[in-house]
């Protein structure tokens, strides 16, 4: 290598070295320059992430066999990015009539002036199903082919129109079990909430509320992508088929008896599971905003938990159970019914204003004698009577896991609003107010060997891919096991002896009618009543308890005429759904099995 080449190489190396040093110096300068630092921070802020409204999936609701009662549906919000709009008229023409949108309203929105500070994006319509979006997308592409980027003003263009997907609550069964499910106000996109029923009670668990989340745009921040968990799904104790059957029978009963409304509860007394709970009116949950048209201010969304009323004679089951349990009466006790009972300055009369003569306790229940029950309660004494009622949960929340439970406190001696006559009237279910589920739960203790289980509609929670089953809870043990058996046998016999319409061929059913007079301006009369029936079976191994309440029937005021046939009709179908064979067949099956 000669000297000249050597010099050239030296110069090149010096140049490269200096260039490298200069690059490094420049990098250091940029890194430490205030102006560039500011620019870097600004870019970081504007382009590396965005705060976006994120919609996690709200948990599903299933019936006890996994049939969907509430789910979610993919829908779209359609809007315009004003900066990109090229032809507002095309947008207005295409969306005219979609979800009630009108041409001039759309034109007004799409024609707004773009202002980076104030108006960038405007919503045109929300909750469009994917089918509409597919069609819109096709038209958009067709126009783009004809008029790329919307450059020609004379040709149509949908430039500027955008759509964003999100989930919307969906109720595939429409009105079915609507009183139990409640609804989620999905139209309030930013602050939707669960109202009534399961949607309200388990709102936090179902979650799925929209939230502002940090969404990175910088690919190096991948790990910071939000992991917003979906809400937990719920499996209810409700059986969809039985629920539908009960709703249908109630609707028929209301029509037949021109009643104001009807309510029914079917529960499993062994664990407190609500198998069906129906009341009127019911709404299509997919159009929940119409509920105000169907429900007056006084009308609860779910009568089974939100209505308190005087239950009438079905309450006698509790009084008689308490009296048997504390030994005030027994199978041998005879009451000579004079037809009237003077107590606390008032007179108690029987339902037909007549006397029934000598009666056993079973006779008292069979003929539903107010006079006899008032005598039984006074024999027990107020303290003991109200202690038992407390144990049965009367006057206290049943704590059922549904929103909107209403209770009415039970007055007892010592309270300013308690008078001695109340001991007599309370004994046959007047002057005391309960909600249907409270009463059904209390009477279920008689059907379940004296144990009162907590009524509930939640069977299992599915969270993070695991199913957590709920455990039945004992609320109290108000009466002894033998008392429960005695009461059940007594009520089976009394139904059979009076050849009640409530009887179900092939099955031994225990039950009691109720006819509660409704006070109008402080006066009780038979014109307006709450007709009811409570029954359970099969008597030897109760697997269901059915409570039926018909409010203000016009065809007949009596529970035995109005509510008992509805009970019988429900139970005749119920035993099929629950796969309960008639008792004779059960005996045969046991024989075959042996």
């Amino acid at each position, binding site marked *: 290598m000669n000297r000249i080449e050597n010099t050239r190489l030296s110069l090149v190396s010096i140049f490269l070295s200096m260039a490298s040093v200069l690059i490094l110096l420049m990098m250091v300068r940029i890194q430490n320059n205030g102006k560039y630092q500011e620019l870097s921070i600004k870019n970081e802020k504007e382009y590396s992430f965005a705060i976006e409204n994120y919609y996690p999936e709200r948990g599903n609701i299933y019936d006890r066999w996994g*049939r969907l009662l509430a789910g979610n549906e993919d829908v779209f919000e359609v809007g315009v990015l004003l900066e990109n709009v090229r032809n507002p008229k095309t947008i207005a023409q295409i969306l005219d009539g979609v979800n009630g949108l009108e041409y001039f309203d759309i034109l007004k929105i799409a024609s707004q002036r773009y202002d980076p500070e104030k108006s960038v994006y405007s919503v045109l319509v929300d909750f469009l199903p994917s089918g509409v979006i597919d069609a819109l997308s096709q038209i958009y592409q067709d126009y783009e082919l004809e008029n790329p980027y919307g450059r020609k003003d004379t040709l149509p263009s949908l430039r500027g129109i955008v759509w964003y997907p999100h989930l919307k609550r969906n109720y595939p069964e429409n009105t079915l079990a609507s009183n139990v499910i409640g609804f989620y106000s999905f139209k309030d996109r930013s602050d939707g909430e669960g109202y009534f029923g399961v949607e309200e009670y388990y709102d936090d668990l179902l979650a799925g509320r929209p939230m502002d989340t940090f969404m990175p745009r910088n690919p190096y921040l991948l790990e910071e992508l939000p992991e917003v968990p979906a809400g937990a799904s719920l499996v209810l104790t409700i059986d969809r088929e039985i629920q539908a059957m009960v709703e249908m029978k109630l609707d028929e009963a209301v029509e037949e008896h021109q009643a104001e409304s009807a309510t029914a509860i079917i529960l499993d007394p062994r664990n407190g599971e609500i198998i069906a709970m129906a009341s009127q009116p019911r709404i299509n949950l997919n159009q929940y905003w119409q509920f105000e048209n169907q429900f007056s201010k006084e009308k609860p969304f779910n009568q089974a938990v939100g209505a308190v009323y005087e239950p009438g004679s079905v309450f006698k089951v509790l009084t008689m159970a308490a009296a048997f349990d504390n030994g005030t009466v027994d199978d041998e006790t005879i009451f000579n019914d004079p037809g009237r009972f003077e107590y606390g300055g008032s007179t108690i009369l029987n339902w037909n204003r007549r006397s029934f003569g000598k009666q056993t306790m079973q006779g008292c229940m069979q003929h539903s004698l107010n006079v006899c029950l008032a005598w039984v309660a006074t024999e027990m004494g107020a303290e003991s009577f109200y202690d038992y009622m407390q144990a049965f949960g009367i006057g206290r929340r049943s704590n059922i896991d549904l929103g909107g439970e209403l209770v009415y406190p039970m007055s007892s001696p010592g309270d300013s609003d308690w008078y001695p006559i109340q001991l007599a009237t309370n004994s046959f279910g007047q002057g005391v107010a309960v909600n249907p589920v409270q009463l059904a739960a209390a009477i279920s203790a008689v059907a379940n060997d004296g144990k009162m289980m907590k009524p509930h509609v939640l069977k299992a929670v599915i969270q993070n891919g695991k199913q957590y089953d709920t455990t039945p809870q004992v609320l109290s043990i108000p009466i002894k096991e033998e008392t429960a058996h005695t009461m059940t046998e007594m009520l089976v016999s009394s139904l059979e002896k009076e050849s009640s319409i409530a009887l179900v061929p092939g099955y031994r059913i225990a039950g009691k009618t109720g006819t509660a007079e409704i006070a109008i301006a402080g006066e009780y009369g038979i014109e307006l009543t709450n007709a009811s029936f409570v029954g359970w079976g099969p008597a030897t191994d109760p697997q269901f308890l059915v409570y039926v309440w018909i409010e203000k029937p016009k065809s007949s005021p009596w529970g035995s005429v109005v509510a008992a046939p509805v009970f019988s009709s429900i139970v005749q179908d119920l035993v099929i759904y629950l796969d309960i064979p008639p008792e004779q067949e059960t005996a045969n099956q046991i024989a075959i099995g042996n």
Partner: protein
Amino acid sequence: MQAIGLSLIPVVLIAASISIYLVISAQAAAAGLEGMVLHFEEEKILRTIANQRSNLGYITSYSQMQKRAEKMGFESPSVQNIHHMVINGYQGQQPVMIAPPPGENTRPSGIVNSAYQESLSSWIIATFFSDSIAKGISNE
């Protein structure tokens, strides 16, 4: 010449470092973007699943099933025309299990074959030495 070569070494090193840095950055960015695309794809799939579940829920809803059953000529039974039979061992309809119970390990084991998780050293030991160790033990 040596001096020139030596003076160029830092330049080459810097250039090489920058190239490696750029290549790795580009790969990381590409992977990040791919991850983001997959994330949005996952969201879309979850929405589609929710949608399909709702559609299925509607198709199998009570009213739709009732219509289908009526169309096919099915009738509701009554207590009178039902005959119950004993089927030994039949437990009746079992409670629904939409997801496994807690405590049950649902992660599939062995997605990656154990052969691919083995290090070279453990393979050498297992292949060439385990037999002789075993033989040695048995001889003793």
